[in-house]
């Protein structure tokens, strides 16, 4: 028996070493309470006029971009692909949700005013519309996913870009083909009732984040991650790569559609030209800047990048140049994105407070190879510390 074996055996699991942790129901309860508190405080501040209408509008857009970034992160950060057509899904969701709601308003007798007062029928219509938008986008995700998933890397990127452009052209011209008014053509779809507000945006954001989180932290999420890390190995471990890639794509598209639905209600017009390639890029920038595979990173960078152009109004003529420079500098100095793939967990923070600021590692020494190396250093036959040994080599594998 070698020393390395001996040291690893000393180390128990965190639970065994006396680390106090929270039970799962407890964690969910804590998070649920936080969400409700936040919601109530936010609503009160808006009603009380502490937060202005301008700020509320910007907050709603932040919420929409959070959903967009986090949903794109499924395909980019978690699945490891490079889709460049996210705006396409957003536009499909936006159009279909808006059209659905506008057509159904007459049928169920809901007026634009009802959305402001929040009558049950209006709420129901909103929910149905948002889900309808998500499903339409998800169907597009499926259609694009099937051929696209045969492709790798940048070829996939370009095919998604192409598909989004096709969606744009279709939205622009479908009216003249069908011979009746559906999307409003080049002029766009106008007169969309403003069914989006802080309250429902916030709730949709929370639900979306929750669903994406639970999907990723399950066997399905692990399968998606494994494809990112090594597709060939994933197949050899019985991961149905086609299914999971499609799943990731469809989920990504679904939530983009949901965000599109919110967007339509927030702005009131949908113009096809605005959902081109540049919009997709804008969302991608948020994901990469935040850190690929980090949900918190996406949330933060969606927030920052939505506020940034607004904050830069003071230097209005130069703001896009400044924005570009900021982008370049961040990438040069933080190539892994702001957060890398770190993810925040409220319960972990609370656990640390419960354990008087110690982390599980502190209580269970020698669980990390670095610590192991220290412990085992005098014995030459032990395996010593290794960090991300392959990074250098990885960078050179071409796919």
């Amino acid at each position, binding site marked *: 028996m070698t020393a390395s074996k001996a040291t690893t055996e000393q180390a128990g699991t965190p639970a065994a070493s006396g680390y106090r942790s929270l039970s799962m129901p407890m964690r969910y309860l804590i998070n649920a309470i936080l969400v409700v508190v936040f919601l109530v405080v936010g609503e009160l501040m808006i009603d009380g006029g502490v937060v202005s209408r301008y700020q509320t509008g910007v907050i709603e857009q932040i919420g929409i971009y959070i959903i967009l970034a986090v949903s794109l992160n499924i395909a980019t950060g978690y699945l490891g692909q490079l889709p460049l057509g996210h705006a396409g899904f957003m536009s499909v969701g936006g159009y279909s949700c808006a059209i659905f709601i506008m057509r159904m308003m007459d049928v169920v007798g809901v007026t634009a005013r009802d959305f402001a007062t929040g009558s049950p029928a209006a709420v129901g219509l909103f929910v149905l519309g948002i889900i309808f938008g998500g499903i339409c986008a998800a169907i597009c995700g499926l259609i694009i996913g099937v051929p696209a998933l045969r492709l790798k890397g940048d070829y996939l990127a370009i095919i998604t870009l192409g598909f989004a452009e096709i969606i744009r052209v279709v939205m622009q011209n479908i009216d003249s083909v069908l011979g009746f008014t559906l999307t409003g053509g080049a002029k766009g779809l106008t007169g969309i009732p403003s069914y989006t507000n802080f309250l429902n945006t916030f709730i949709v954001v929370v639900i979306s984040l929750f669903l994406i989180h639970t999907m990723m932290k399950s066997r399905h999420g692990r399968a998606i991650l494994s494809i990112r890390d090594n597709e060939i190995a994933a197949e050899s471990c019985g991961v149905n790569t086609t299914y999971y890639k499609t799943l990731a794509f469809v989920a990504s598209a679904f939530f983009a559609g949901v965000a599109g639905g919110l967007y339509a209600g927030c702005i009131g017009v949908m113009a096809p030209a605005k959902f081109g390639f540049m919009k997709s890029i804008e969302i991608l920038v948020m994901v990469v800047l935040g850190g690929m595979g980090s949900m918190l990173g996406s949330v933060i960078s969606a927030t920052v990048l939505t506020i940034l152009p607004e904050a830069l109004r003071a230097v209005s003529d130069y703001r896009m140049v400044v924005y570009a420079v900021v982008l370049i500098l961040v990438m040069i100095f933080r190539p892994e994105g702001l957060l890398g793939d770190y993810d925040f967990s409220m319960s972990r923070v609370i656990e640390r407070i419960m354990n008087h600021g110690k982390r599980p590692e502190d209580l269970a020494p020698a669980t990390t190879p670095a610590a192991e190396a220290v412990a085992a250093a005098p014995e030459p036959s032990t*395996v010593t510390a290794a960090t991300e040994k392959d990074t250098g080599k990885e960078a050179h594998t071409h796919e």
Partner: protein
Amino acid sequence: METPNLVPERELGKMPVLQAEHLGIDFGGLTAVDDFNIAMGRTEISGLIGPNGAGKTTIFNLLTNVYKPTRGTILLDGYDTAGKSVVEVNKMGIARTFQNIRLFNKMTVEENVLVGFGNSMSTHLLTDVFRLSKHWKQEAEFHDKAMDLLGIFSMQGLAHERAGNLPYGAQRRLEILRALATNPKVLLLDEPAAGMNPAETEELMENIEKIRDDFQIAILLIEHDMNFVMGICEVIGVLDYGRIIAKGTPEEIQNDPKVIEAYLGKQGVK
């Protein structure tokens, strides 16, 4: 041999678990493997050796359907694997490791193993997404299973470490465990001892035998470390230019002049 499907169920126990006949593949003009035959017993450890480029890894790729054979058939438990995808072959019961380690580098050690357990996990997507109680039960169950599995190599303490950060030897071991997690009948190991020092190699040998005994599976391995191969394998096949040139027990192989000439060289003689 008869059509595989005709074999009566009860006979399955007696037949070889893995059987390949006249297996061959060409890459353009190059015949990388030709007329390869093998019949593996249920709990047998066999070795595949041969000079570099002889086609050993290629045989693994054929057995797992990574490459489509140009000729020949592969039967697993009597079922033909022709036309099956890599995923399906794994689910049928063949798992493998890779010559160049292929771990899920950014995932933790435990997660790597859990991906392997995917074959046995059964919750529906919605069960997991909405966190129904079945989800929690299953996660807990497989967490324990994963820990048991990691115990084989005393790696429980590394469960939350990123796989990519592990030392080389630990990475090789983890790859074996991940393959085991897929619940295979046959385990293919491609140079499991490469990059390990003699002490580590010895430990690995013990563990591989233990795995065979505990899991009652067949193991086919490729290795250039002769101490390792000779010490652990019951049968060894020697491949040269894609063809088997010798087959037998370690002693027979060690003294086969053809093998010495093509593969062992001076080291084999001594």
